[in-house]
């Protein structure tokens, strides 16, 4: 006797919870064979608003020790490793072949491990002690920008998301992620991985639905500090960049072949870091005394 399969409900991820969209709407993306992938939340600007406010509440993430952030990122990799099969299945449903799907999931795990390792190291490479010509100790350290909007590429829905999001949270930012609109399954399942790891709620928030609808509210949102744009829609990117200027958001456009192992690096972390420079007087530094 055959058993009735339990179908998964794909919800969005905001503030560590899995709500449905406030709009109550859904959409049904289809794969290349015109098979429906599922009922996905068609998020609205209100979900963007909720996600941004959840991300803002979670900015205490930056104040955790770098070591702790590294541990949590590594934990995400562990959780993903344990659920590889599910991701492979979803990627296949979305149209990727078995081999490519396995490679993509493996690389995603490895990439998370890669950025986990950076959590307590980028500060030493990107920071500096500055030899000022006065009696002051002066140093520069990288700090998180704050809340970052991440627009994922349509293709490679898992590795694309991981490649754009991990450097952002590695640097202590929190983010609102607009998942691949056409291939959203892995994004939602990845949220479940995050949920099972020790990542505090709100650090990563993942929305599904129409980018056309969501990019504008995120680009103009006055409480978003930066945007990483990973898609390839020129018109959308330009509109986003114009709206972003209203609060001088930092906008980075990153389009690389994320399936290549080498497309991960320190400088991508730097895209969402600010440099803060601190000065303090030093008593009795040679030559700087005013002795008459």
């Amino acid at each position, binding site marked *: 006797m055959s058993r009735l399969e339990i179908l998964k409900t794909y919800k969005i991820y905001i503030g560590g919870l899995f709500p449905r969209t406030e709009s109550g709407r859904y959409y049904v993306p289809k794969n290349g064979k015109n098979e429906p992938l599922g009922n996905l939340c068609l998020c609205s600007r209100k979900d963007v608003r909720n996600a941004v406010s959840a991300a803002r509440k979670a900015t205490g993430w930056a*104040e955790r020790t770098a070591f702790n952030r590294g541990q949590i990122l590594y934990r995400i990799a562990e959780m993903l490793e344990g659920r590889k099969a599910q991701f492979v299945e979803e990627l296949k449903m979305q149209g990727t072949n078995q081999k490519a799907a396995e490679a993509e999931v493996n690389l995603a795990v490895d990439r998370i491990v890669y950025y986990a390792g950076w959590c307590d190291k980028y500060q030493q*490479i990107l920071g*500096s002690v*500055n*030899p*000022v*010509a*006065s009696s*002051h100790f*002066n140093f*520069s350290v990288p*700090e998180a*920008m*704050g809340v970052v909007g991440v627009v994922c590429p349509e293709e490679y829905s898992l590795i694309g998301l991981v490649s754009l999001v991990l450097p952002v949270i590695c640097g202590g930012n929190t983010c609102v992620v607009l998942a691949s609109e056409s291939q959203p399954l892995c994004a939602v399942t990845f949220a479940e991985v995050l949920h099972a790891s020790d990542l505090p709620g709100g650090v990563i928030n993942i929305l599904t639905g129409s980018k056309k609808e969501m990019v504008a509210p995120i680009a103009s949102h006055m409480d978003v*500090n930066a945007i990483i744009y990973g898609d390839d829609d*020129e018109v959308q*990117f*330009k*509109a*986003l*960049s*114009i709206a*972003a*200027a*209203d*609060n*001088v958001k*930092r906008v980075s456009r990153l389009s690389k072949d994320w399936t290549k192992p080498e497309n991960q*690096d*320190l*400088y991508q972390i730097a895209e969402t870091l*600010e*440099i*803060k*420079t*601190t*000065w*303090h*007087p030093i008593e009795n530094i040679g030559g700087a005394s005013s002795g008459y």
Partner: protein
Amino acid sequence: MAKKNKETTGLKWSYDPALEGVDHIKLREKYDLFINGKWVKPSSGKYFKTFNPADESFLAEVANADAKDVDKAVKAAREAYDNVWSKTSPSERAKYIYRIARLMQERAREFAVIETLDAGKTIRESRDVDVPLACNHFFYYAGWADKLDYAFPNRKVSPLGVAGQIIPWNFPLLMAAWKIAPALATGNTVVLKPAETTPLTALKLAEIIEESGLPAGVVNIVTGYGDTGAAIVNHTDVNKVAFTGSTGVGKMIQKSLAGTNKKLTLELGGKSANIIFEDAPIDQAIEGIINGIFFNQGHVCCAGSRLFVQESVADLVVRKLKDRMGSLIVGNPLDKNTDIGAINSKEQLATILKYINIGKEEGAEMFQLACDLPDKGYYCPPTLFTNVAQSSIIAQEEIFGPVLTIQTFRTVDEVIQKANNSPFGLAAGVWTDKGSRIFNLTTKLKAGVVWANTYNKFDPSSPFGGYKESGFGREGGLHGLSAYVKLS
């Protein structure tokens, strides 16, 4: 206990004028555009006048570049980039920049005097701060030219191409140095536009660049107004735009570059918090407050214009501050003893006075130094407002003048919250004797520069730039290189 003793009157001792000489200063009647190593007339034939804000006297006529002139300058920069500068070895590049630094040092006094004449800033500051820092900036970045591979581990570093640079009127020469030095060191060529009220030191710098033998077209200086700047920003053959100025204009530039591949850095406005705790070295903090808000007549993007004083010492600090203001000398910027010079322009003075009126209307309590101001020229006495709330307009908007707002606070968390409660994030000051508290604050303040137990310090090796609406990108130090390179 000793009784109040008999007070005697000492001698009233005021300082005679000590005017810096201007005899050795050579200014042309008329300045053309510096394009492709030559002085060329503006295509429109139009010139504008630049005045001394200290006495409204005429200084020189300066060419007004239009889009055609800008195009000429960008073309020259492009050709110089393609044919000469990108083929010049990094160590040779370094030597040109060193040479510029040395030539500037040799003519330091001349630069200082012209800066004071054109900008209204005191000779003490242009002599001791602006000009040496500008020279040192060239000297610092010169050395980077052949060491860039060490600045970005694991990456190949290449220049961007032609950099369009627009600078403000508050530190005319220094900002030119901040822009040009790193651009050249990283192998870019430059089209720079100084502010219309303060073009002269940039043009003097052009003379030095000419004298240095830097290949023609590597640095081009075009003078003009906002439309000249817009022509640079929008020129299709510019690869990089660097702007220092108001947040309003910065946003316009960011919008106009949207969707292009031009790299952008912005150094914009601020409303920086200067925070005094009860355990601070109070007398030095007073100096820090004075230096924070009255340095350069308050025309400083990182001015410590919002003072936060812990309530337990608020009365003491305000009394000492008023007292200290009494020894500030306001007047002719060319006098070596002047502490506060002229406001840069009539327009800026009007803006400042507008805010002072708003402050009064908002019910804040005003204290102004009683001093005689010169009859001619644009002056504003040092001003402070107490009884100010976070919601007062004068505590929110950038005034860009010698106007300080004072608020009190009770706890560390409260003051962090108030300090960060601003769209800006350029700088902050923290005064306390407790090391662990300093680091708590320096970590939590959303500002690109935090001065702890000091204020308004600058150095070529120290990165400068803001968070949030104060702009993005850093100038100075290793981090200042990023603005002018691509990594591969």
